[in-house]
């Protein structure tokens, strides 16, 4: 698996901001927009925010195709919202909600595209620290997240292997033949990994 994920390398201001600041900014923006939603100011602020977020994409070197691809899966939803809210007699509400959704998704995308996965995971680990008295161990949070990234190719390989095993016996790769052995294999793999972790003193 590509450990870069959705991150797009770059040197813009947004790229250089710490992950926590960006998340906080996103939270603040969405909160303000939702709070302004029923006010007259919202009618200006929401489209302005959406437009500003859209413009930020080319400005940070992300181009315009990425935001459009983010919005594409929203279109059917936007259509349903617009239709329904208009039918109930409030076309302005329809417009507001649609723009709010667009602004929020575009702003969130900005954070995702300009933040390294590792920076975000480090942030999660730091955020987990105050939970220590409740029994959460931040080092283990980080360990499990990394273990998962490492396990994805292994799980994918296990599926492929079981399909091949079926093919080798002249059987079609029916899911009901392969799923249970694959999952049992995964459990055994996890047990071996657990043993290796214990042996290396990382438990």
């Amino acid at each position, binding site marked *: 698996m590509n450990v870069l994920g959705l991150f797009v390398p770059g040197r813009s201001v947004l790229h250089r901001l710490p992950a926590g600041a960006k998340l906080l900014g996103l939270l603040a923006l969405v909160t303000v927009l939702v709070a302004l939603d029923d006010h007259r100011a919202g009618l200006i602020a929401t489209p302005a925010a959406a437009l500003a977020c859209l413009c930020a994409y080319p400005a940070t070197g992300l181009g315009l195709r990425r935001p459009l691809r983010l919005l594409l*899966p929203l279109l059917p939803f936007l259509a349903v919202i617009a239709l329904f809210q208009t039918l109930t007699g409030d076309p302005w509400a329809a417009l507001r909600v649609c723009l709010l959704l667009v602004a929020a998704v575009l702003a969130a995308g900005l954070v995702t595209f300009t933040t390294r996965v590792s920076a975000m995971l480090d942030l999660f680990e730091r955020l987990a620290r105050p939970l220590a008295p409740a029994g959460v161990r931040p080092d283990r949070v980080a360990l499990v997240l990394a*273990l998962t990234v490492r396990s994805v190719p292994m799980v994918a390989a296990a599926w492929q292997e079981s399909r091949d095993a079926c093919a080798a016996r002249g059987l079609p790769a029916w899911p009901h033949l392969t799923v249970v052995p694959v999952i049992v294999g995964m459990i055994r793999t996890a047990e071996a990994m657990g043993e290796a972790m214990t042996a290396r003193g990382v438990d």
Partner: protein
Amino acid sequence: MAESPAQAVRYRGLTARDLALVAVFAALLAALSMPFAIPVGPVPITLQTLGVMLAPAILGAKRGTLSILTFLALTLAGLPLLPGGRGGIEPFLGPTGGYLLGWVVGALVIGVLTQTLMRRYRFWGGFLINIVGGIGAIYLVGVPWSALYLGDTLLAGFIGAGVFLPGDLLKAVLAAAIAAAVHRAYPVPPAGRRVVKEQPDAESERPRA
């Protein structure tokens, strides 16, 4: 597994094996997003909810819920683990974000019910539990969330039911069948370190991860 059901035996915390099981099932969830995604309308149908039901049905409440949380954390961090290569923060903010959070509640409900109601995993019990947790609990979070955007709970419920329900029922059946087979083939021991206590007490375990 073969432990005597004595009241005084409890399991505390999480062992290295438990951490690995959490990670591997989170990875399974990620793998399930890939080959089978069928993008239908606004809400893509995938096998991921199958994973959401399987993890707690096989691993129990603690490890099952943690594996869902782990998967969601990696998604949130920007890995493209959702159907269609989506990931990052925006799927959580969008109209179907509530379903993602609902997965956590659903896994918890399935895990707790499985542990408390079934001493041995059975298909029919598992199926009913999957419906309660994997459909009921998930919709309970997902539908009101969609309703925030749609402005109407009824419509959101209708869309949720219409689009997700047939597939989810099928997945509830599949998950119960698979979990029953896995429990028969290779039962996973309970999470945590075995602690033998002087006297039995029902103090709840703390999640550790």
